[in-house]
């Protein structure tokens, strides 16, 4: 190893070493960056320019969203680059500075695309991009590599998934596959380079359970957002245009003021999905970072899955929608799918494996650390659902996140 645990502890305690963090403009990365900055860590935050915005402008907007104070931001240096290029696409002086002064790397950047058609871009980020970060880490003074992975590297299987490297070769999608390949890659590389390694494996992450705030509105949010979009669309048709299009689709306004959307979802009511809030992930990550000095693999998951029936029920209650019902595949035979059902079920097809998950996740490594600090993952109930979805609606599912029109 490049450093003793004692020296590692001391350097961290004195906040002497800098952390290079990738994916800092993403959902997980930005939350970790905000927390680490508040804890006094000094960070090189790797970010790309996007459209007309420079990297530092993008980061500044996100830090504003977090309410990070100016004095805290002094510990942050935004470096404009990309994991998809060797040397992280950094210019000469910046690269030298980063190589010289990076003490730890937190790698959050990832492409979360599921569809096979996205394989080239997913591999570019999750395999080639990771390779570039590892190559950077080897050349730098990095002593500890923190790799954000996923609980679903376990692949298509049933039963207990342990906190160890997996040898699966059957995956639900390209995301799982590349993340599993990535773990092997990062493990081999760090071992060879004498760099300590923590692998963090969260399940599906949503917004802050305490405030409802979020920067990203996909995964759990998408089907809800779609339902709300359809509700608004057909409510406007009924109220403003006589409701001809709503009637053609079998959509109607009920006497209690709710809107009836005839949507049969191809899910079992009792089937569940493993959800963790971002605040839990951040708390778990920092605890593991502090405590796991020798390195390890950690599942950051919820001990209690959320039943699909509950999710449907929360959506109905919060948004005053009727008609969305779980349905078995064979029940579609009698009446073919309508457009709304095609839209939903095609999407759910991609998320299906996570909704009828037969995998359970060992939490021995993580539990030991989290229990010491009394960190527990909250159950996803109506209250949290409402908090998160109300925030989503407030910011128009992200469109008004940074004060946009």
């Amino acid at each position: 190893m490049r450093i003793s645990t004692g020296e590692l502890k001391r350097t961290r305690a004195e906040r002497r070493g800098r952390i290079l963090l990738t994916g800092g403009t993403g959902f997980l990365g930005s939350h970790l960056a905000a927390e680490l900055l508040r804890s006094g860590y000094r960070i090189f935050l790797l970010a790309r320019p996007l459209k007309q915005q420079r990297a530092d402008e993008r980061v500044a907007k996100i830090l504003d969203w977090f309410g990070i104070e100016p004095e805290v931001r002094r510990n942050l240096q935004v470096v404009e680059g990309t994991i998809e290029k060797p040397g992280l696409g950094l210019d000469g002086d910046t690269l030298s500075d980063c190589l010289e002064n990076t003490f730890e790397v937190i790698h959050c950047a990832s492409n979360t695309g599921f569809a096979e058609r996205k394989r080239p871009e997913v591999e570019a980020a999750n395999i080639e991009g990771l390779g570039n970060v590892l190559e950077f880490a080897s050349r730098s003074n990095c002593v500890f590599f923190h790799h954000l992975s996923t609980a679903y590297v376990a692949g298509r299987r049933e039963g207990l998934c342990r906190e160890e490297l997996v040898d699966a070769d059957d995956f639900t999608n390209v995301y799982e596959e590349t993340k599993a390949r990535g773990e092997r890659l990062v493990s081999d590389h760090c071992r060879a380079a004498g760099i300590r390694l923590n692998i963090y494996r969260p399940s599906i992450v949503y917004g802050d359970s305490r405030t409802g705030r979020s920067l990203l509105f996909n995964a759990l949010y998408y089907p809800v957002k779609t339902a709300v979009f359809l509700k608004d669309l057909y409510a406007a048709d009924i109220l403003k245009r006589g409701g001809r299009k709503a009637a053609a689709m079998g959509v109607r306004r009920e006497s209690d003021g709710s809107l009836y959307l005839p949507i049969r979802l191809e899910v079992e009511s009792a089937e569940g999905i493993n959800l963790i809030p971002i605040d839990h992930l951040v708390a778990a990550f920092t605890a593991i970072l502090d405590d796991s000095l020798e390195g390890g693999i950690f599942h950051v998951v919820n001990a209690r899955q959320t039943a699909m029936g509950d999710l449907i029920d929360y959506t109905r209650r919060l948004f005053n929608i009727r008609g969305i019902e779980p349905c078995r595949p064979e029940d579609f035979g009698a009446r073919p799918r309508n457009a709304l059902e095609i839209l939903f079920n095609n999407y759910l097809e991609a998320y299906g494996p996570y909704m009828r998950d037969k995998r359970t996740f060992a939490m021995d490594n993580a539990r030991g650390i989290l229990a010491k600090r009394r960190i527990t993952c909250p159950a996803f109930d109506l209250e949290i659902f409402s908090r998160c979805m109300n925030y989503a609606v407030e910011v128009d599912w992200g469109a008004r996140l940074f004060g946009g029109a």
Partner: protein
Amino acid sequence: MCKIDYLGTGLCPSGPERHFVAYYPQGRMDICDALAGELIPVTEGLLDIADTCTLCGICDRQCHFYTGMRPMTVMRALKDYVAAWRAEGGRATATAEDEVLKELRKIVGREWATNDPAILVTYANDPFPLAAMRMPKYVVLPGSRTDVESIVRLANDRTLPFAIRGNGGSVFGFVFTDGIVLDMNRMRKMEIDPDNWSADVEPGVTSFDLQREAHRRGLRVNAAEPAATVCGNIVCTGTFSTWSNVYGTAADNFLDMEFVDREGGAFHLNDKSIANHFGFERDVLPSPGICTRGLVKLHPMTGDEEGVLVPFADFDEAARFARDLGQRRIGLAVAVLGAHYIANFMSPSKELAARLKQSLPEVLGCEYMVFAVGDRYAREAIKRMAGAVIDQGLFRMLMLGLPRLLDPRWVDLIREYEGTMRPYELLCKSEMRPLLEAVLEPSAETIAEAVDEDLRDFYAALYERPEMTDMVWLNMFRIVSSRMSREKHMLAFLVYVPLDHIDVIKGINEEFRRIADAEGLDNDYGFLTPMDFGKRAILEYDYYIDQTDPAEAAKIARVMRKIGPWLDDLAAKTKGVQWLKYVFSQGCSRKESFLYESLESPLRKEGAPR
């Protein structure tokens, strides 16, 4: 475009009466520019040109449709300028009639020949950035072949150079002269002979006008851009379009053509005693002469033709599909279109076009589409071959609902869709139509929301007409093709390519892109149409420049110096590659003579004179 009534709004009233370009909105714009640059004085002709503008507003609607511009501001400025000039007691400059003009007027009649600078200046320039302005001495409008013969002889007698303009227009800087410009605008006779499957047209007949006449009779012509003249386009480029998939190009398009040669004598191409103009020589050659008549082929239409678009995520798949259609002889018009073309064809404003162009690949996952027109059997085959297709009904829905299709909430929903199907595959499913109907609210009023408020009623009425969303009609009349120059002036590079070597075609696209990017020029893929049963194809790649910016002209000059040698070298090494530059003015040749290698001439081998 202001010389054809492509929107059914009528034409600028003075244009069809006086025929000179100066009496159309296009000419009045040039005159304003020339006045602002103090290139011309206020002449008698200029006063008449300003006075004959009635400020009727036709030009505003016509021009906005394809450029997004509002020329009425300029028309008003011209009239205001003339009114102020008169109020100040200005006296118009009269240009003296010299001997040549007298002779010309003897040939064509007094009103059809002029040396008035206000009229001359409208024939002195075009948007091509590498051609300098050249003022002709005279502009003449012949009314017949004998007029043309006499003018040519007069020009030869007086050793005056001359240039021909089919319909007064010019875009490539080729038709300038210091001598006489012959504008064929008055020669507009056209006669359809259904039994001979032909149209006998004079050189002032435009593609739009001929197509309209043919269409009335249930027939079709392989037409160029709507404002291009039929004869001029055949002679210059051989006329190609998406219909060239089945109708071919060059000599495939006509039965016979009549010309006046450089000495002022007439001949026609089917005369066995003349030089062989059906052959091709890989060189920049002059045209056979001045075309005075064309006997153009007409084709039958079946009542069940409709257009379809087949979306693809990448060029290879799309090109293979188009080739497959050509080889299997499925469909009539066929082309691989990129997001840039599709977006501009569909969008009545450049803002909407820009958003659609971005959304097609980013949101819908479709970078290219194969466009095809076919009868019901062909369309059925295409659907079975492709799976997801945008049929005429869906196309109409998408076009009329375009502002809603690009509504940010809907776009976000589709962008984040992670389903197993591509987003466009999902939208193409017939079961999705009721939902799309609700989301898009497709109607003439909806699409009209994309334009300036004062034009919305006009656009709503326009889009009520079924042909404005009919892929077959739009592709026959090509009225939306001109929108490609809406943002900037377009320079089109056309290359015949071997369709069995898609790698070669991709290489050409990449090189065009590389050369333009290196200079910072806007550029984009244009289209690819299979020809001759999918063996060959014509490829268009476009550069976009601000023709008023000298820096962009300099860039174009530099890229032209790179493109010529590169394409010449590629053509020498690759069978089936042929740059249109060499076909130019040899448009009457057989396509086989430039798409394939010919036998080597024994005469040429021995160095005998040609």
